[in-house]
């Protein structure tokens, strides 16, 4: 599956309890809407680390990387490129 869709599926299933892709826009804020909270960010980081074989540092847990599905996807792409 395409990477962005994989990430989105994880967020949908684990935070919105939905399979419906229309329930979350790729640019929609994961943070402001409370979709990802202080527990959720931890789950999301663990998922990305395992799924894409990355190590995510605390410095990288910032809004620029985790604001939306799009930013998470780009962040993972960058990480994979330098891994």
């Amino acid at each position, binding site marked *: 599956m395409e990477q962005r869709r994989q990430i989105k599926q994880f967020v949908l299933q684990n935070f919105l309890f939905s399979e419906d892709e229309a329930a979350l826009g790729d640019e929609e804020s994961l943070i402001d809407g409370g979709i990802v909270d202080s527990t959720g960010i931890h789950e999301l980081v663990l998922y990305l680390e395992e799924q894409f074989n990355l190590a995510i540092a605390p410095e990288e*847990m910032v809004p620029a990387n985790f604001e939306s599905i799009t930013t998470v996807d780009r962040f993972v792409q960058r990480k994979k490129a330098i891994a």
Partner: protein
Amino acid sequence: MAAADTLPARLATISALVPTRTAVVDGERRVSYGALWAQVQGFAAHLRQLGVMPGDRVALVLPNRIEAITATYAAWLLGAVAVPLNVQARARDLAPWLAHCGARVVVHEHGHPDVAPLLPGLATVEHAVVLEPGRDLPGDGAGALLPATASPDEPAQILYTSGTTGAPKGVTLTHGNLAANTAAVVEYLRLRPDDSVLAVLPFYYAYGNSVLHTHLAAGACLHLARNAVFPLQLVEALASGRITGFSGVPSTFALLLQHVDFTAQDLPHLRYVTQAGGAMSRAMAGRLRFALPRAQLFVMYGQTEATSRLTWLPPERLDDKPGSVGVPVAGVSLRICDPQGAPLPAGVEGEVEVRGPNVMRGYWRDLEGTARVLRDGWLRTGDIGHLDPEGFLYLAGRRSDMIKTGAHRVHPGDVEEALAEMPGVIEAAVVGIDDEVLGQVIKAFVVARPPPPGGEAEVRAHCRALLAPYKVPRHVEFVDALPRTASGKVRRVRLKEAEVLS
């Protein structure tokens, strides 16, 4: 502060005394006490033009931002009741809350997905005040200033509790409730005008509400953070803002401790850290104190029905009263009762009951619900615990969380405490799951990093070494995180549901 002062009277006084002092820092925006008071006056005049009368409800669907504060105090200047609602809630909660409180005005941000479409369907709502991001509330500076004359007996706020099921429960707090609890907290935290707090907890919850009003009442400075999601950002905010105080729930501290290397952080200004909103394991309290050796840790316990705080553990007693949530705050009486309501002696477990000037008047428009929890002035908290001979409270769990396995009753907290002491375990929650033979058996959900090499068997062996056999979890499941309510409490119901479905 004098407990006789209502919060609006207190803010009026401080604004007159130190108008140039910074009251709130909200991202790039900051507002002094004088400017804040002027905005409060301006928005109060606007609300009056809209026809808001004493006793009317003004609902706020806002994240933590300056205008959430302004709108609250403006409503109070008119004798109206502020109803701060969870900004992350969806229509299925917002609609019943707004209808139940009969809000006349709703203040919300432009772009909230659910509020605007809801309002035409709500009979009582006459006006919406829509805020653009980063913009001030509408104000009318032309009229005469309004005096802060709220009476202690008048209702000031309705807080809808984060209950997961049932009809809306609107905890109705008077100006007297808020003033008394605020004064008590200011006293034990020794809040001063030179304090500054990083406020991450939402103002629409009792705990965040308390953080807000205690710091304003002390003439201190609030730095607003929109969320507690990015651990390093929080720590940087603590450092750059020279923050002296930080309040969190256990999940806030779990995230910080997992992702921040505190040995590399210098937080010389941080004077106090407060924890409430669910029990924190002793192990986590220990790690937190180790990570922040210069800050005093205040472990506290409270309830929305009691405005916010009921007990606090003086930091110097953390070591000789481990696991205790401390002693009642000023003005609060506390007793332990049997199911019939008769007081029990020290050392005997029962339901925690409290009385004091912070105890709510009741649930909004719910005499039956009120009568269930308020009896002769005593609030039945639904929490189970005991007092030691010195009057320190130890909580064992919620009445409804008790697991009945065989002939035994097990408090989830006992088992969770033991699990948290295991190396690698970050947090754990246990629930009772149905069992044909024993009624219920204990299942533990464990967040461990790394997971113990011996897996489930190692967890059970660890528990067996510390606990009576009947308390050892029959089942252990490793999970990435525990489900929590928006206020950070573990959702045991969700864990049980997951169990039934699987």
